[in-house]
């Protein structure tokens, strides 16, 4: 049987995988701090005894879209969004550091600052941030967290810690299976960059462009139909060659 049918099959299969990637972006169109994934297909020539005239398709996730998401005002004093570059440092399930743009913070009963996914937020000291009982909390432009302790007057603001905000090389950053970003090579724990700025009372939305994703979903659908058409054509070709053999 002609191998063209297998080539068309990989095309259709990888169209489906690409579809999954775009639909994941769309599903997370309203997830706080979500970064969309790029998807691309690569031609993989098949080398063998013959000319390398065939090429399988190969879907990849080469990178993540690091463009900024929309700023959504919430008025919640613990919501923080990064203006411009940078990532918050949080603790992942293994206790290691991971990086995220997600800034919808809240406090646990023991005062630990966590983000919307429940990951503890790491401070400039390198450990998780713990807030003592407070009456009012303010997060400054540089990430400094100051509180008015419960029962204290307005002139008794105390600086507790600061948010650790890092400025990694985006080329060297990869999204892990838990959705957190980590450097691919080199030091896994990055240094705090004091030059980065945040704004409190806002969260950063998802940077998914729904029009782009939906257009891709529709385009992939048509491409998939072409692959199936190709398989059908191969089937017809096989059938006609059978017929020729029967006549002779």
């Amino acid at each position, binding site marked *: 049987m002609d191998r063209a049918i297998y080539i068309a099959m990989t095309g259709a299969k990888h169209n489906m995988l690409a579809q999954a990637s775009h639909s994941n972006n769309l599903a997370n169109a309203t997830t*706080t701090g979500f970064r969309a994934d790029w998807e691309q297909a690569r031609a993989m020539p098949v080398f063998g005894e013959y000319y390398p005239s065939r090429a399988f398709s190969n879907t990849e996730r080469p990178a993540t879209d690091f463009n900024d998401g929309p700023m959504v005002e919430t008025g919640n004093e613990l919501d923080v969004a990064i203006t411009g570059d940078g990532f918050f440092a949080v603790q992942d399930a293994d206790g290691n550091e991971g990086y995220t743009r997600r800034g919808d913070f809240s406090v646990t009963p023991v005062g630990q600052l966590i983000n919307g996914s429940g990951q503890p937020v790491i401070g400039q000291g390198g450990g998780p941030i713990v807030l003592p009982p407070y009456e009012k909390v303010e997060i400054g432009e540089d990430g400094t967290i100051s509180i008015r302790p419960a029962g204290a007057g307005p002139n008794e603001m105390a600086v507790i810690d600061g948010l650790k905000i890092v400025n990694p090389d985006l080329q060297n950053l990869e999204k892990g299976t838990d959705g957190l970003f980590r450097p691919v090579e080199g030091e896994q724990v990055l240094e705090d960059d004091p030059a980065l700025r945040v704004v409190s009372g806002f969260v950063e939305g998802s940077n998914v462009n729904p029009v782009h994703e939906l257009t891709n979903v529709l385009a992939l659908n048509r491409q998939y139909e072409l692959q199936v058409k190709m398989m059908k054509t191969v089937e017809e070709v096989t059938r006609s060659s059978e017929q020729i053999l029967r006549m002779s």
Partner: protein
Amino acid sequence: MHKALWVGKTGLEAQDIALATISNNMANASTTGYKKERAVFEDLIYQVQRQPGAQSTQNTQLPSGLQLGTGVRTVGTQKLFTQGDLNTTEQPLDLAINGRGFFQILLPDGNLAYTRDGTFHLNDEGQIVTASGYLLEPDIQLPEQTSTITIGEDGIVTAVIGNDNQNVIQLGDIEVVDFVNPAGLQAAGKNLFLETAASGPPQVGVPSLDGFGSIIQGALETSNVTIVEEMVDMISTQRSYEMNSKVVSTADQMLGFITQNL
């Protein structure tokens, strides 16, 4: 089957919950002491289809792999305890807390609940009760013939008995409680909240002292829902839902197409 079908489904579910949250906020836009909620989402785990950096041959490496996300998940709904506007009503038993804190309410089963809704009434025995008839804790009993009742910013309740303005008696004080993480309280309906492991234990205090809010007599705290914000959220939720449903139908068409044509 088609991955995108399931991923699209998680997106539909998430937007469904978001819309339910928004509509509950809208429905309670004029509920006294209501605190708005927002649905919190996170991306589900990613599946590694092909490991980046794996050897494609003995001498070459795959420059990038394929990791596919599996959709979105609702982590929960978070109550936002920002202060609502204070609405003056001039009713002596309407109380608002300006700042942090909750009133304590004794439930019929003996447990305590907490509320920001200060619409209080008197029952047939002269006790201060909520609109549902539950007692305010600690219990305040008004004597017969009470002509005026005054509740101070620090919660002290005094009453004037009869026509004699000299006959002022102190009836008790209203305490307020606070939580480390009010967002962790469980909403129980009837404007009441219950303590949970996430909220931490209640800390009882005197209003206006130690960081607790002050009690304002003759005012009510309105809901902190902003209609404009909810409307905008509703529109974007609807569009997002439509797009996710488009993914589901597209994935279905792809499967349908191959079964019909091959």
